[in-house]
């Protein structure tokens, strides 16, 4: 198990350093000198030179590259030029809002996806199963930004049941949750479909297992078998799926944040791009990627702990 976990972590570390290389290349490739981009057209040559030295742009490329790696490893993602604040602080300030959105999305997808999958598996081949199947495919197919805009139109603008903009009053949990309902639905809807399909498939497989046959032979009711004995095993693949899902949800949270005017990483990056604030863009993308890789590694290790078969297939 330890070997499996180490191998998985090692792969994660390589991926993160490749990602860092790409981020460095990105800042380096941007047309124009980063110093002049940062200071704008009215900067004097002396100001530019001072900033170039401060940013280390007068050093050779390989020095800059090593310096970049070193400072990222120390948790220093550079300084935002406009407000002179550390990039990491700016990004970390927004991260909780995006995480809340992703957790909300997971809640929707697990709370609806698992029961739907179970019902479909119990009624396999029947009308209910087919309806759930079509619904799941539809939820997967429709892009999250369309879901976000349409749910805003229906529930916030037309019916006015739920708030349309912002993340709610700070400190007021009820208001925060109320503001989370629609955006997190937009983020999680597709994953209701993925999870219900996954649970249905793995439930059908589990129901064939010998210990379930034994439970049947003992005369337990079908509901008892499905929801107490089989579900425990059938939800395992969902954990790996959610590892991937969190990445997708991070992506769709960009749209949800823009449509519902919520603070968060996505909105931060989007607004940074329009004012060409590159340190923020690369810092936020790097933090998101590291987070995503760690989640996937954690999901894989968790599944390895729960299901020994995965460990051996990895080697």
């Amino acid at each position: 198990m330890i070997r499996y976990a180490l191998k998985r972590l090692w792969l994660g570390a390589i991926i993160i350093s490749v990602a860092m290389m790409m981020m460095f290349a990105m800042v380096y490739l941007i047309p124009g000198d980063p110093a002049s981009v940062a200071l704008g057209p009215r900067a004097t040559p002396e100001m530019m030179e001072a900033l170039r030295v401060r940013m280390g742009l007068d050093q050779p490329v390989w020095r800059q590259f090593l310096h970049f790696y070193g400072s990222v490893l120390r948790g220093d993602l550079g300084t935002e030029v406009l407000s002179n604040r550390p990039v990491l602080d700016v990004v970390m300030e927004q991260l909780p809002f995006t995480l809340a959105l992703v957790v909300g999305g997971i809640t929707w997808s697990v709370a609806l996806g698992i029961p739907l999958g179970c019902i479909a598996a119990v009624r396999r081949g029947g009308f209910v199963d087919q309806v759930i199947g079509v619904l799941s495919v539809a939820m997967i197919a429709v892009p999250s930004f369309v879901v976000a805009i349409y749910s805003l139109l229906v529930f916030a603008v037309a019916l006015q049941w739920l708030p349309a903009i912002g993340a709610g009053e700070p400190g007021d949990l009820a208001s925060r949750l109320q503001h989370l309902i629609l955006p997190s639905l937009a983020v999680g809807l597709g994953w209701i479909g993925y999870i219900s399909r996954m649970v249905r498939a793995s439930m059908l497989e589990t129901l064939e297992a010998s210990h379930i046959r034994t439970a049947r032979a003992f005369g337990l009711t079908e509901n008892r078998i499905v929801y107490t004995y089989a579900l425990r095993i059938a939800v395992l693949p969902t954990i790996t799926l959610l590892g991937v899902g969190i990445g997708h949800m991070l992506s769709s949270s960009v749209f949800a944040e823009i449509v519902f005017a919520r603070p968060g990483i996505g909105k931060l990056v989007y607004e940074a791009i329009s004012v060409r604030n590159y340190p923020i863009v690369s810092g936020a993308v790097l933090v998101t990627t590291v987070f995503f890789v760690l989640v996937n590694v954690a999901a894989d290790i968790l599944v390895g702990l729960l299901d020994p078969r995965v460990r051996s297939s990895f080697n």
Partner: protein
Amino acid sequence: MMWRTVRRIMREPLGAVGLTLVTVVVLSAVFASALTSYAPSKISPAERFASPSLLHLLGTDHLGRDLLTRVLYGGRVALLIALGATAVSLVVGVVLGLIAGYGPRWLDNVLLLIFDAVKSFPTVMLALTLVTLFGPSLYAVVLVVMLVNVPGYARIIRTQTLVLKSAEHVMAARSMGASAGRILRVHILPNIIGPILILISMDIPVVVAIEAGMSFLGLGVRPPTPSWGAILNDGFANIRDSYWIVIAGGLPIVLTTLGFTFFGETLRDLFDPRLKGRS
């Protein structure tokens, strides 16, 4: 052969709905200029924000442009980008997959690592980064689609190539002195094209969504080119007073993605159930 396939698809309820939607979307895009008498980018200030009527079936936008016309022409943009970008990613994916599967072991490992690294970026973050680098354009959209699709295609091709590499007919060809290029072209490629076609039909909705999503954020095709995402963007700014604009922009996206997904799912279930469970 073709008609038999169509009949088999139409027998499945999901396939029938999917194929019908796909046909409607494709035909309406192809015959866009015959289906409407307006020009897609013609501005008429007098008719700004007109709600749907017999004159303008889907209403008009903030510049008085007929929305039905923009939706129809937007279909051309969406489908052309979907087909073009998918074709490019397919070619790159097939070449890389064949190299990884048939080439030396170390190259295989390097390529796999790159695929994993590329896939470890959340899609939208990738798109935002690329647009920062190259500016918003059609090419940025194609590049994002490639980076999203190529690792998946290449991985499948690689796996299939590895399997076929040790198959008897490939061994026989190799023992008769066939070159690597000939083996790949004649013996391996024809055997892996089936699953790839099915994957493509399931990826088209993803590409349509990427194009529309990037255009919605103002990072895709430039105005005044009609794009479903751009219509959504125009409508979103006026969602409180002119709800029909977002409806006009979103509906074709919903119908197209549903249509191609239903169609692709049916194709897969009928012809290659092994692909089931891949997402």
